[in-house]
């Protein structure tokens, strides 16, 4: 059994999420022009400005 993290326990104590149906399929979401445009924009952003791994390393120190 997966051991629950402190984060998980805090989250579940504070908020109750209901797992259930969503009225649109993931296929329709992925085909949506809105989503396609969002993903294109996000890809273009990361191409121009790659994820700053050095910022994560700096934060850990």
């Amino acid at each position: 059994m997966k051991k629950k993290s402190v984060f998980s326990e805090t989250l579940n104590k504070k908020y109750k999420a209901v797992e259930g149906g969503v009225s649109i399929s993931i296929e329709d979401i992925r085909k949506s022009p809105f989503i396609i445009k969002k993903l294109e924009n996000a890809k273009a952003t990361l191409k121009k400005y790659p994820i700053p791994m050095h910022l994560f390393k700096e934060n850990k120190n």
Partner: protein
Amino acid sequence: MDKEIYNFTFNKEDATFQFDSIGPKGKIRKLISYILFDRMDDGTPVLNLAFGDLEGNDQNISDTVISNNPDRDKVLATVARTVLQIIDSYNKVGIIAQGSTPSRTRLYQISINAYKEEIDEYFEVKGLTDKGWEIFKKGTNYSSFLATKKV
């Protein structure tokens, strides 16, 4: 993040959430979807946060509609809650958020500012300026946001 939120349902497998915003203009169904589209250099998956209204019998998604329901804070708190859910489910993940217009991006920024102390408990947030990514600072305008769980 003890602010009031909407009850939502979610599909864990697809990382998709849905809830109804309710106000004088009626019920507006909202969709939040996190889609894998890239990986960091260390292999960490990067998801794009897409947030919009479901229209046309729930077949179309848009975020250009101005609903004017006076529940902006409750809606944004609900979105923030789903970020927690995703980070809890995936553990090591990056989430990119960009508004489709400058005013929508500004809303994300207002929301991050409002929850900054609570966010700092769980997340590292970076902001993007025209000079590149930096650690999120209040008072700076950003065009995109990147959230990861603190290790």
